[in-house]
């Protein structure tokens, strides 16, 4: 029998706790890690939202000077970077972490400490990026950091160093999680849960992890080259030294396009879980849903240069990428028809999650339509770099991902926290969000086609942009307010102490078979699965709703021990990257040596610490 880490810890004078603040630092429990992701991501989401509100206030009237042009550049860069990397991705990660082991009938992920490490590195990256504001040096070159604006010559401050290094840190977190969840889903399913019986959210998560694993290395290389240019004076993207700025664009978008599928596929998965439950009908066309997801991911690697139609690649390249982009609309369309087929003829339960799910379908269709308009390269020459594009991606990222993540939040809240969210407030949230969202972003299609460019800190009067911009700002304020409603709902519901049952929605999947919130070991007995919608199966065999599952002792179930080392290793990673920023200072080598020592020391203890009792 392995000695527990507590014995070793006692010898070393460190005691990982089971409760309290330290229990969160040392936790390796996927459910706690999920909550950590969710809380952090939501705070970053609010920060990104605040950045958006300031942008909208600045654009509310022509020739405005609420913020300086320099600060405006920081605002839109950080808004984009924050929303993509610090909000949508980790909000999805909240659901990956909390729900995937439950959906597949496992006790935890394949590598619990690596899972914790991913979270702490993500937090480090998010804090690092946002700490730039303290130095008045927030990233200001756009979330896509185009060369050679991002070069030392044209971005002499620390802004783009914060950006590149911050993204590298986040990339490490994502890659580690990618390996972890890929192995978990492939290897840790309950007996009988063949891949083709898995919940669609698990499939979409699996495909998303594959996209992360295969696309993040490309941006890692791009960022390395950029940092070498900025820190060491190489000329990868410096034209005077022979560098080609187009190389940056290609490398970035080879990553960047799969990245948007990383942002939307988990949302697709959530919707595929919510619609069946609230239509009381199995998902229409399960196999088509799985294969279309795979096809989207595969094709997603072949369309990246549709972000570059105006860069003069030549007619062959333009045509190839235009055609591939149009092709990708097909599997996406399959999904939309299948969602509609799921709802059609069902017994619709209009609860809050369903509102957001239906809202998702409508908003995502609109975003998809503007997307397909972009795919025609000639038409895109007018649309690109205008507000039309801003409209498109907000419809798919907010109307798509955020609506779906919100649906997931209302859906899974009772399971995660043990109480329901108030229905009335939930519906109010929905309507405010739907109205606010459309008021903000629909007019952008119009001003975009009328010629308003992206990333401008103001516009002159008399061009016809004034009234619609003002409308968009009002819409944004309503949208922001809708989230206050959500926060109020969370606080009110948490205080209400009304306990949620294990299965409040008559759910189809395994997570609803265990108490709310789940006990640490998830399942007292690992279930055996006989088909899709495993819990509906069970209820069918049982002849109706299952009785409330009791909370049991869990004696004899081996769980991984808590550990300090993932946290410490993350600290080492952060220190290493900070040291990189100071590499040419007087103590540069010393900082690097110190950081590497912390990292190696932590990894060493991590490796030799017994993982399981």
């Amino acid at each position, binding site marked *: 029998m392995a000695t527990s880490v507590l014995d070793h810890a006692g010898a070393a004078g460190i005691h990982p706790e089971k409760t309290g603040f330290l229990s969160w630092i040392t936790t390796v429990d996927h459910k706690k890690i999920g909550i950590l992701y969710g809380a952090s991501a939501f705070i970053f989401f609010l920060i990104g939202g605040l950045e958006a509100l300031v942008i909208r206030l600045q654009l509310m009237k022509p020739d405005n000077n609420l913020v300086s042009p320099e600060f405006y550049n920081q605002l839109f860069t950080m808004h984009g970077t924050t929303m993509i990397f610090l909000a949508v991705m980790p909000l999805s990660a909240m659901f990956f972490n909390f729900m995937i082991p439950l959906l597949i009938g496992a006790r935890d992920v394949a590598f619990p400490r690596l899972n914790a490490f991913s979270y702490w590195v993500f937090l480090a990256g998010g804090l690092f990026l946002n700490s730039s504001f303290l130095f008045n040096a927030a990233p200001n070159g756009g979330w896509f950091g185009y060369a050679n604006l991002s070069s030392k010559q044209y971005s002499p401050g620390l802004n783009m160093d914060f950006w590149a290094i911050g993204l590298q840190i986040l990339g490490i977190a994502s890659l580690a999680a990618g390996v972890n969840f890929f192995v978990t889903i*492939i290897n840790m399913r309950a007996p009988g849960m063949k891949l083709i019986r898995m919940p669609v959210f698990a499939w979409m998560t699996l495909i998303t992890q594959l996209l992360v694993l*295969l696309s993040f290395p*490309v941006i890692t290389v791009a960022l390395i080259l950029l940092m070498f240019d900025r820190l060491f004076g190489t000329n990868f993207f410096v034209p005077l030294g022979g560098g*080609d700025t*187009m*190389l940056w664009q*290609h490398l970035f978008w*080879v990553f960047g396009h799969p990245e948007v599928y990383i942002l939307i596929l988990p949302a697709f998965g959530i919707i595929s879980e919510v619609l069946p439950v609230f239509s009381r009908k199995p998902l229409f066309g399960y196999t088509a849903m799985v294969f279309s997801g795979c096809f989207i991911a595969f094709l997603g*690697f*072949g369309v990246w*240069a549709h972000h570059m139609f105006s860069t003069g*690649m*030549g*007619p*062959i*390249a*333009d*045509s190839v990428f235009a055609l591939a982009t149009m092709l990708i609309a097909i599997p996406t369309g399959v999904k939309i028809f299948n969602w509609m087929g799921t709802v059609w003829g069902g017994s619709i339960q209009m609860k809050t999650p369903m509102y957001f799910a239906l809202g998702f379908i409508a908003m995502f269709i609109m975003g998809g339509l503007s997307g397909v308009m972009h795919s025609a390269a000639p038409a895109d020459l007018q649309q690109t770099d205008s507000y039309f594009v801003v409209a498109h991606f907000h419809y798919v990222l907010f109307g798509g991902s955020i609506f779906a993540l919100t649906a997931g939040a209302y859906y899974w809240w009772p399971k995660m926290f043990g109480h329901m969210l108030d229905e009335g407030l939930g519906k109010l949230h929905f309507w405010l969000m739907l109205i606010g969202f459309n008021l903000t972003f629909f007019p952008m299609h119009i001003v975009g086609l009328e010629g308003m460019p992206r990333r401008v800190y103001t516009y002159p009067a008399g061009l016809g942009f004034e009234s619609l911009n003002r409308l968009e700002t009002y819409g944004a304020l309503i949208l922001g307010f809708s989230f206050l409603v959500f926060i109020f709902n969370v606080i009110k519901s948490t205080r209400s102490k009304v306990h949620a049952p294990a299965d409040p929605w008559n759910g189809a999947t395994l997570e609803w078979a265990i108490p709310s919130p789940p006990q640490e070991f998830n399942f007292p007995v690992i279930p055996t699965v006989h088909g899709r919608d495993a819990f509906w199966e069970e209820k069918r065999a049982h002849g109706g709703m299952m009785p409330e599952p009791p909370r049991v002792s869990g004696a004899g179930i081996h769980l991984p021990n808590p550990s300090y080392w993932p946290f410490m290793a993350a600290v080492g990673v952060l220190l290493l990257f900070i040291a990189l920023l100071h590499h040419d200072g007087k103590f540069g080598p010393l900082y690097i040596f110190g950081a590497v020592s912390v990292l190696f020391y932590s990894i060493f203890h991590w490796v030799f610490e017994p993982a399981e009792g």
Partner: protein
Amino acid sequence: MDSTAAAQAHEHNFPERAWEYVKIGLVLFVLTAMEVGAYEIAHREGVPLHDFMHTALIPVLIVLSGIKFALVALFYMHLKWDGPLLKGIFSFSLFLATFVILALLSLFIYEGKFSELIGPLAKVAGP
């Protein structure tokens, strides 16, 4: 743990397997020598096969290194006896890696040449 019969038979033949690996090691060494040989031939005038190798050096090197790659992956990395999942993970990654390299090469180096090939169509399509 491998469960296929072939893999299990393979697991128990330790002494023969060690010798197999040594043989592969020698083949790898010979292939490397051939690569360097091809390079030398391509760069020395008047040597037999110089003209052929001068034009065909790249395909020759691709073939030789491809064989070395396959030998290490299949035998040393044990993929020959592993199941389809591991083979699939590595193959798909390699496929995508090759695609990225070829795509970037096409976009940066060969775009002009493609346009020449397509000729009239290209004139119709663009300014």
